[in-house]
């Protein structure tokens, strides 16, 4: 059960004199949230009845966590003739999670805007009948981030966690145990987030076509980390607590845009909207990066690199004959190619040392297990004579899926086989005769559950897919009975509709039997459901 108390008090003042408008706002916010939760587990003696009984219960977890925050915001805004805009603001925030010395943080913000279409010189340049609205705007601000801090509310106390894990059984009784929480942490404070946004809003043809474009960048600094160069002997039994390190920085940088068109053709009203965004997360810098040599730096540096990089091997082809394997100069499998068969993967030997090993790995794809770097949406809507129709699509690209486990090697753990492996794989013409000629296929010759074989034991471009998809999120068709008819039936509204969620998806992974929006590399995520609804809305 969650109880949440929010108090927000706001005082506004606005005044216009001549062409000047000024606004002042002061806000105070207080939030207290109490989360009570109970979790019981029982070993029922019968499955017939659904209730839980005290005598069959073996676990009862009781939780009571209160969190609280305070914020004060002051904002002064000014505009001249609805043409020039300026705003300065400041926040003071305090969070329960931080230790008493570090609870408060101060965060300034400023923004400005210019409606260039209000300028006479611009109106002379481009007629307002064509471009009726163009606003340039920019903002820069600092905010504090108290999520994902390596502390909890009581880390600054020297204390014990009561009821840590299952009880110990001592003298035959269950004894609730208390675990020492370790050295108090008193140094952690807000992570600083610097946000920059530059953008424009526009309207064309009397707002028939509207849209906006933005460039944004968020740099976070003071991300908590450990000073690795202060080495505490392991025998002390604790490690240096994390602290906010100014050089620990990451950033998200990207672009987004949206465009909408409203139109009419005869009796049909329609609208088309599209949006697209690009955003990628990078590590900007880390605390005193240190490398043993340039190779170590190449493989392990994070400085200025995108996060979530997948490293792997590059496949340049598949062997087509035993002769080719016998004469191949590069040791592909680490065993003189003795384990290879026609159809097996040929890895690129980047450093030309004649053997495939970790030094032949390179970043592959866009990174997996994360949100797409490119996201987009497309909305279509139309109405005509009581009929209405709309359709929403979502799109994603710029992320990778590396097939593994069940998705990579045949009969994983003695289990089943991927259909694609069965459909096309290298095999002997007569599978009972090893001397019969090889028949080519898409996948290597099948082995039974051999995860260690060189085709399967490393991530490679062969198993990697850079996913692209467009999914029909919703599609709805409706018909509303005309009002003349309804009046006679004493009904105020009657609408019949059919809608479908997730009706189809066009993507480049469906042949593996997986959904485009999963990230478990064994493919064992439950796919998104398809829904089809048929309904009637009646209002009396």
């Amino acid at each position, binding site marked *: 059960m969650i109880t949440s108390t929010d108090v927000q*008090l706001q005082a506004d003042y606005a005044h216009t004199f001549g062409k000047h408008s000024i606004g002042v706002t002061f806000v105070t916010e*207080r939030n207290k949230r109490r989360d009570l939760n109970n979790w019981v587990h029982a070993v029922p003696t019968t499955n017939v009845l659904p209730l839980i009984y005290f005598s069959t219960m*073996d676990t009862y977890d009781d939780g009571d966590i*209160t969190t609280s925050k305070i914020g004060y915001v002051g904002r002064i805004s000014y505009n001249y003739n609805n043409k020039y805009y300026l705003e300065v603001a400041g926040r003071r925030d305090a969070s329960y999670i931080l230790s008493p010395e570090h609870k408060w943080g101060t965060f300034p913000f400023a923004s400005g805007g210019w409606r260039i279409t209000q300028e006479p010189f611009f109106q002379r340049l481009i007629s307002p009948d064509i471009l009726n609205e163009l606003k340039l705007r920019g903002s820069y601000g600092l905010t504090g981030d108290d999520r994902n801090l390596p502390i909890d509310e009581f880390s600054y106390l020297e204390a014990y966690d*009561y009821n840590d894990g299952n*009880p110990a059984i001592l003298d*035959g009784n269950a004894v609730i145990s*208390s675990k020492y929480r370790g*050295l108090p942490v008193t140094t952690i404070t807000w992570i600083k987030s610097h946000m920059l946004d530059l953008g424009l809003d526009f309207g064309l043809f009397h707002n028939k076509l509207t849209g906006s474009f933005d460039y944004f960048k968020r740099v976070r600094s003071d991300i908590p980390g450990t000073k690795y160069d202060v*080495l505490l002997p392991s025998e002390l039994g604790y490690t240096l607590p994390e602290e906010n390190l100014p050089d620990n920085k990451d950033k998200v940088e990207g672009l987004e845009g949206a465009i909408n068109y409203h139109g009419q053709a005869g009796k049909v009203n329609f609208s088309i909207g599209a949006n697209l965004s690009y955003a990628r997360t990078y590590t900007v810098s880390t605390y005193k990066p240190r490398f043993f040599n340039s190779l170590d730096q190449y493989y392990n540096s994070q400085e200025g690199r995108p996060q979530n990089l997948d490293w792997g091997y590059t496949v340049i082809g598949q062997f087509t004959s035993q002769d080719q394997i016998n004469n191949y100069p590069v040791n592909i499998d680490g065993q003189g190619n003795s384990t290879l068969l026609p159809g097996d993967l040929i890895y690129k030997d980047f450093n030309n040392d004649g053997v495939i090993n970790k030094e032949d790995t390179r970043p592959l794809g866009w990174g997996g297990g994360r949100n797409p770097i490119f996201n987009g949406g497309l909305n279509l809507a139309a109405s005509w004579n009581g009929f209405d129709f709309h359709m929403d699509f979502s799109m994603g690209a710029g992320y990778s899926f590396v097939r593994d486990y069940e998705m990579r090697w045949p009969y994983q753990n003695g289990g089943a086989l991927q259909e694609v492996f069965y459909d096309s794989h290298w095999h002997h013409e007569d599978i009972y005769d090893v001397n019969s000629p090889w028949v080519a296929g898409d996948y290597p010759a099948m082995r039974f559950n051999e995860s260690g074989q060189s085709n399967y034991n490393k991530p490679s471009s062969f198993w990697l897919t850079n996913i692209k998809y467009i999914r029909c999120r919703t599609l709805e068709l409706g018909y509303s009975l005309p009002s003349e008819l309804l009046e006679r039936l004493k009904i105020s509204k009657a609408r019949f509709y059919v809608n479908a969620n997730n009706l189809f998806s066009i993507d480049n992974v469906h042949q593996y039997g997986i959904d485009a929006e999963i990230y478990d590399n064994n493919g064992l995520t439950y796919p998104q459901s398809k829904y089809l609804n048929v309904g009637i809305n009646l209002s009396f």
Partner: protein
Amino acid sequence: MKKIYIIAIAAATGIGMLAGGCSKDFLTNDPTSILTTDQVFGSKELAFSALADLYKGYVDQQTITNWVEFTNFDEAFPSEAGNYWRAQQTDFPYDWWNLWNYDYIRNINIYIARCSGATALDDADKQRFVAEARFLRAADYFEMAKRMGGVPIVTEAKTYDYNGDPSYLQQPRNKEAEVYDFVLAELDTVMQYLPDDATVQDRATKGLCLAMQSRAALYAASIAKYGVNTPGVTLPGGEIGIPASQADKYYQISRNASLALVKSGKYSLYMKKPDDLADNFASLFYDKSNNPEVIFAQNFKLKSGTVEGWTLNNQPRAIAEEAQGGRINPTLNLALKYETLDNKYTPFKVQSGAGYAYYDKESDIFNNRDARLAGTFILPGSQFKGKDVDIWAGYYVPASGKIITSTTFGGQAQLPGRDYKEQVVGFSGPIDGLEFSAQTGFYVRKFMDPATGSGQIGTQSEVWWVRYRYGEVLLNLAEAEFELGKKDSAAIFINQIRRRAGFTKDLTPTEITFDRIVHERRVELAFEGHELFDNKRWRIADKVWNGQKITAAELEAGVGKATAPNTMAYGLWPYKVYDPGATNDGKWIYKIVKPDEVTAAHRFQLGNYYSTINQDIISNNPKIVKNPNQ
């Protein structure tokens, strides 16, 4: 204008204050699951609660809550697809079994300091709690010494002063002998503050301190004595290796501790079921009521959250309460070690002349053996929880010499001359490569809980994990007496153990050899976590696991020899004879098999005797001397 503005701010702040009171109180919430140090050491119950956490940190290597560790050597094969690699890996990695858990040591040191200084606790409570914490610290140093050799002995929780250079906190490794000396001395000190009460079996007692001294001193003694066999396994500073000259001293300490425990008369061998010695031996591990043998166990309790899944994981597949079980498959290698009752090592007879040996009953091949075989193994033809375990590999048809079987649990096929299908393999297998089936022909019985529900995920078991028992102390005593040249005395104690296993003819003092000592521990203490550490201290691990493939014949020939190679798991499969009209119809034959998944011969290298010290530990403290494998 200005006035309105000021009023607005005043109103906002004023109401803000009313809504939440002072911001400091608003932001600081009372903890609901956290106790301050003062609270913990302000009452007996809470001080005990912090001690309970320390008991939970006790380290075991092989244990019933980590079944898979039993399958790395020669006692058992892992019948679970995800763990077949253990039978396919030749070398044990050098970093296996390493332990450097100074976070636990720190927690104990803090506990000892806080509890000793607590003013709110009774002296008697304080003394016992502190003694228990010191016992746990000694136990952990013993555990670290077993794996790493000498480690720095830290008895106080120090804190870095943030002066920029923590090097003043660096402490070098103590000698291996010093760690053993520390453990023995601590146990000497704390045993006077602990209850001398054999009914306390899941907390530290005086008897437990003696039992641990008995074991730890024996370890130190054998490392001193047998270190000569592995001259490369030492360090010049004594961090690894104990001088041979100290062997007798440690054997003497071990002997004295064991004798003190024996003479106290508080413990005895479990003998509640003299009519069925196999059942008696099995009960020793699951019977928790007035068990006179168990000195110290990790305890479990149903419906407390603290339960264990040994029975769930290892229940015979045919009668499992879930669609799993059967993971531990004890090996033929181990079964062969159980003597026939004439004190002889006798292979299982599978051939008779040129043909198979035929048995009337499936279990007959195991007759007339050391009762501990049937007490430790679930054998083909036996029952568990009153039900047939149904282990048989198929039908043998003498007419054609063919085997008729199936690849699914209890699978069916048609026998020659019949017009219907019938079951042709046990519901527990053995089926080669099928997980949870008895791929060696055996399941484990030791620690298995016969209670209903013990095989269910939602219930599991409260059978305890026996860490120290009187039987082991007798074997420690026999070993120490043997090493000190007193074979007469050694024979007395080893024979006590053997009589309980059903042997009626005692071993004579001249029959007591090093091989006998090793052998008796193997069969008595199988699946109790001793094998690896015993083989290490005797310095025979590199010979037993020498990386050479072995045949079943070599295995049989080596039984009874401490250093005989034992590198690959073998099994023994029963088949039902189908020969309508003939005398052998319905009888049983056996075949010796090596499960297909067993492909590698285990190799324990000299570098495995002491585990790798992780690089970060050495970087953090350059005074830590590396182990010889690094």
